[in-house]
């Protein structure tokens, strides 16, 4: 089961976050910072799956943007890995350039809408 989806930039700022389990607002910032620190410190030739506390993180880097998905142990990590790529391809088709997601403005709402579609694979 997917627990959350995060999109962060290299500096660690959250660009998009979506939680599929209720998490308190105060805990969210700490969780995001911790997760991001975990992923940003990994080198290029390292595995994309990280064991973090009691769940796993699957992360993928696209230029300056990191997409991190937190999943439970029962999930197929490779399929989530492919799902992230699928998601990025969809965004790419819709907004025409994923890297410029940093400058997504009004279409931020559409982004959230696309995140909703991830519930299909929850």
């Amino acid at each position, binding site marked *: 089961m997917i627990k959350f989806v995060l999109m962060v930039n290299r500096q660690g700022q959250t660009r998009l976050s979506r939680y599929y389990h209720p998490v308190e607002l105060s805990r*969210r910032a700490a969780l995001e910072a911790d997760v991001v620190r975990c992923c940003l410190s990994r080198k290029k030739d*390292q595995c994309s799956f990280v064991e973090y506390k009691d769940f796993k993180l699957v992360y993928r880097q696209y230029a300056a943007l990191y997409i991190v998905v937190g999943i439970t142990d029962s999930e197929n990590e*490779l*399929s989530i890995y*492919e799902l992230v790529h699928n998601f990025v391809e969809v965004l790419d088709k819709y907004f025409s350039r994923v890297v410029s997601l940093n400058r997504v*403005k*009004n279409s931020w709402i559409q982004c959230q809408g696309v995140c909703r579609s991830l519930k*299909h694979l929850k």
Partner: protein
Amino acid sequence: MSPSVPLQEMIRAIRSARTQCEERGVIQRECATIRAQFRQADNEGRSHNLAKLLYVHMLGYPAHFGQMECVRMIASPRYSEKRVGYLGAMMLLDEKQDASLLITNSIKNDLANSNQYVQSLALCTLACMGSAEMCRDLAPEINRLLRASNSYIKKKAALCAVHIVRKVQDLGELFAPSARCLLTEKNHGVLHGAVVLITELCECNPESLELVLIRWCQCLVISGYSPDHDVAGISDPFLQVRILRLLRILGHNNEAASDAMNDLLAQVATNTDSTKTVGNAVLYETVLTVLDIKSESGLRVLAVNILGRFLLNNDRNIRYIAMISLQKIVGTDHNAVQRHRGTIVDCLKDQDASVKRRALELSLALVSASNIRSMMKELLSFLSSCPPELRSQTASGIFIAAERYAPSQRWHIDTILHVLTTAGGDVRDETVPNLIQLITNTSELHCYTVHKLYRALHNDISQQPLVQVACWCIGEYGDLLLRGECQEMEPVQVTEDDVLDVLEAVLQSHMSSPSTRGFALTATMKLSTRITENVDRIRSIVSIYGSCIDVELQQRAVEYNALFKKYDHMRYSTEWLGQRFLVFVCSTFVVQSAGLSPPICGFPQVCDLLDLLGGSEPPLQSSPALGSTAPLPVGTAGTAGGDLLDLLGGLEPTAIMTVLLSVFSVAPTVSVYDKDGVTVTLSCEKQSDSGLSITLTASNSTDSDIRGFTLQAAVPKVCISSSFSFQVNLKMRLRISYTSQGSAVQDTVQVDSFPGLGH
């Protein structure tokens, strides 16, 4: 009031803030504006304001004042406002908020709306944050929508049903028939939703499944190429993965279902293209399913082989997941996994830390009696290069494996020594006593072990466990070391000075912990009986520590010093000091870090002596020959047996130290009582081999007279143990009573040492 800025302006302003403080300032200003505008009844830019608020919320700032606005906007007839309202509801509202109840009615109305997008908004929101009450209220509506004609709606309704089933499990029966109908759909989106729903239903209630389901799954998976859902050449891998997971649940403890699935799984396993990651994802799910159901052995072998192929893949992710799966089955399918042992061991050298960790766990699980030597070689080379966080796990794994499967004692000791030299700082505390126990038990390897340890100690004194064991060994078997010959290693001439140099270095090094210093000091002391020339050097080393700050060391040093002073003469003539300590003494000696247990108290022969002393032997009724020179009349007391027993009553066996003290102090005449002018001296001489005469002389040096002087003496009956090479000790108790200047005086004196008694 500042005019409301559009969303993108606000985002730009927030992003351009250089510090956290600046960002907070911008956001607070915006929130104030938004709040003010919410209070206004009619406002054109309501949706924009709410959108801005949602963005601020996502960054982590509180936005609870927007909840009522969400509720209002959901009720609005305009689609754009509804959309943002529902989005806000999903993000800001959850079960715990009271406002969530208010939207139940709106959702109900919207579910019946003619516009499918409005319906879908309502469905999404319910699926996201619906509480148990809301779910119960709206479940019949959802069920109706599951049978709707519109596949877009059906898809969303299926997901909503999944959420409802998760929240309220009883409602599962309500959805079961509709769910089964959904399976015949062509639309993959609906199918996917249906499969998820059925998976959820099966997890709650396994009896609600039928074999027909499996046959249907079979058709679906093998069905032809569908260009709409193609991902890198595989048709709808996400759906395939879902179906496989459903099959796993169906077949989990079900023989019949597993049988029906065998062909299907074999087909998927062989036909899926494994050159792309997507294909590997499907294969991975297949392998997980095969391993989880009651599959036939051929299929299991196929699955393990797929995992073996994964291990050789270049992609690190795939190697990692292969090892996770192998870890799960190494208990049950041990032989199948053993075949891939070579690849697993190679992965120990991988760059990635996660892969290394997995490879380590698998390697430790694969160690068996047949491959112990080769595996240990690999593990030891891994230990020297592994990352620090894995070291202690590796070390303890190696110890456990060595203990279980060691082919020979020497190999075992070698392995442990190797680990101590490479990763000595990371081993657990009980390693030291365990190793000492092991060394003691292999008596034929003492010479080899002590030579090896000496060499290791000579090279490096920083690894504490190694230093402790080495010190202990040198203390115990130092004579073997000094003898210089050893069958199993090339002989090296070690002089007494070398050994003492090493021990002194350990004692003085900054790196040595207090317990290590204790070991070294004790070893130095033990060596004093085993070496001949440098006793003075040892004495000086030991006496330095008599004033050490560490209390433990100081106590030891002082006691050892005492041994030096008083028992020097017995050092070479007595054998028992040179005897080996018993093992159980060593373990208590080693484990107890505080308090010095007298190093001799574990001795069995000495224990016998204790028994003798404390035994209830009736005392000898000896009438001492009193050569009295006192001018006073001496009356021999009627010594009843009882009195003498009383005398001896308190004669408990004290610590053996006192016994030794008693044995070995030598003086020709000793004064046993000297008080108030009355003195009693004692001298003994050997009359014959079995007889001893003791002379007690009493004298009065006061001016006044002494009347009624009585002397009673009692000695315990002792027998000499033949293993002792010295004469037995004797104890005597004297009771002296007299009257002087009108007052009666009575005193009891114990005589521990007898003059003239040598050895």
